[in-house]
């Protein structure tokens, strides 16, 4: 259990590459207002312009600057990614730990519901809900969170079950610590590395989902999203615009996901220590 995730990631080449890529995307997202040449929503009469000195990546069909949209798109992606992952991780922790500690019928019910959710393909559920609710960004984050905590809860429950049997927890129990105290003081810190890995998985899944929904046209119409950019650019694929419109948006999205994949791959040894050393240095 006592594996240092940070060290696992630092020691693997893939992990380091992932951290660098992610840092870049986060930088772009944080400083989007400073590095963007235009307001990304500002429309102008010059639509579908080719790249030039004033518009390095040209403009889209309503004359918005594509480079600025690309930078702001990182904000939407990461906001949904981190937002969903934090909320769903919280839910995973609550349900996973409580199921393991309380047990009995409560555990049975929670686990059956979790298993049921895991076998339903989530994207199609989100599409159905989004078709009716037409969610804006905050609502979308809540919907995605409500549908993505189940797998994490399963893993956290399994880990808690094994932690529960350890000596130090038995000791804490015998000194009169109640389950809430034990969950907070002993289980939470020991689950740390697993929570981190689950968090990265969660971000990746949510980034994926946000872009996909935006691509299908059921995201927040007011948000600037790489998925929307690709969807719009696809309609003009008979022009040359895909070179500076579609590809950059797709590359930014893929880079973000690749960065997260690399980091999680390096950290996966936490979930399955048998993989240690499987990594190529």
């Amino acid at each position, binding site marked *: 259990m006592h594996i240092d995730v940070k060290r696992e990631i630092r020691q693997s080449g893939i992990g380091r590459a992932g951290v660098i890529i992610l840092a870049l995307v986060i930088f772009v997202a944080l400083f989007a207002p400073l590095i963007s040449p235009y307001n990304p929503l500002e429309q102008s009469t010059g639509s579908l312009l080719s790249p030039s000195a004033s518009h390095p990546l040209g403009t889209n069909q309503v004359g918005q600057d594509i480079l600025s949209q690309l930078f702001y798109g990182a904000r939407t992606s990461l906001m949904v990614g981190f937002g969903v992952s934090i909320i769903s991780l919280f839910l995973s922790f609550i349900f996973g730990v409580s199921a393991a500690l309380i047990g009995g019928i409560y555990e049975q019910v929670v686990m059956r519901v979790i*298993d*049921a959710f895991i*076998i339903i393909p989530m994207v*199609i*559920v989100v599409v159905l809900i989004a078709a009716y609710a037409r969610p804006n960004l905050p609502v979308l984050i809540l919907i995605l969170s409500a549908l993505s905590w189940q797998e994490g809860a399963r893993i956290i429950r399994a880990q808690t079950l094994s932690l529960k049997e350890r000596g130090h927890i038995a000791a804490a129990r015998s000194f009169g610590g109640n389950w809430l105290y034990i969950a907070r003081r002993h289980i939470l810190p020991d689950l740390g590395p697993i929570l981190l890995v689950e968090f990265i998985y969660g971000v990746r899944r949510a980034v994926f989902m946000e872009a*996909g929904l935006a691509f299908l046209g*059921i995201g927040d119409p007011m948000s600037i999203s790489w998925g929307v950019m690709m969807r719009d650019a*696809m309609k003009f694929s008979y022009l040359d615009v895909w070179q500076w419109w579609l590809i950059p948006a797709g590359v930014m999205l893929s880079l973000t996901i690749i960065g997260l*994949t690399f980091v999680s791959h390096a950290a996966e040894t936490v979930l399955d220590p048998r993989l240690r050393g499987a990594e190529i240095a």
Partner: protein
Amino acid sequence: MRVNTRRNLATYGIAFLIILGLNFLLPRLMPGDPLTAIYGDEAMIAMTPQLKASLVERFALDLSIWQQLGAYFLNLLQGDMGYSYSYNAPVWQVIMGSLPWTLLIVGVSLVLSTLLGIFLGIESGWRRGSRTDRTLLTGLMYINGFPDFFMGLILLIIFGVLLGIAPLSGALTPYSGLTGLALAWDVMRHMALPVTALTLAQLAGGYLLTRNSMLTVLKTPFMLVARAKGLPQRVLKYRHAGRNSMLPVITMTGIRLGKVVTGTLFVELVFAYPGIGYMTYQALLSRDYPLIQGIFLVVAVSVLLVNFAVDCLSPRLDPRVSYAY
């Protein structure tokens, strides 16, 4: 074993109820008139009062929620999933028209990505740490980062727009009147790009699973014994290590099917391939709610059924699975 089956049945029962519940409750939870929510604003404008009255009666919308639920189940049992006004046909009929295309590309890419993933996983795991392994691992993780639709778009641009060697959209050349081999060739040409996109996007999953279990299997004592017996490399690699390493890929088929189905939703849109995914997109555009609901029901239930079948079969393929609970 028996306990597992019962528990499994309970899980699938709950999943089924969740799906039905969502389908029944969502339109009725929307603010305003439930009929508008079920059929959408656009349809309501074109509706005559008589039609409205007959629909209210069919959904039992003037009765209590329980009676509505009863009417909903009764309609479903009769195979009545409502009427798609954008296609002007019963939902069931519309879905059946495009389902074969989706089954075709989903099936082919699931088989291809499974076989290719297992093969690459075995090669990579066997030569762990070598240059082949390193290239495969990094390369496939890169590919894994490409969302299905971006993968599709790249293929579309390279092969469709730049090289012009693949058709840009559709599943058949319209009005060509092809038959026999020419027709088969036409279908294959049209599905080449969507299938490639789906296969590439799903490849990494099977590959990583196989590679990981390969690494574990290679360390087991039976591999040492097999080696000590002087078995040839080929037998060691494929019959001893390989066969044991592909089990997780098979037992995960249900989950991977879910991913391929999800992927096809986006890939079909890119290639305007006339399957369920493209139809979902059309239904979303025209806000054809009965059709969206029907698609949701058919897709979710089919994935559940395949999952269930795989769950029942996997203890036979791998007896260890039945102890894994």
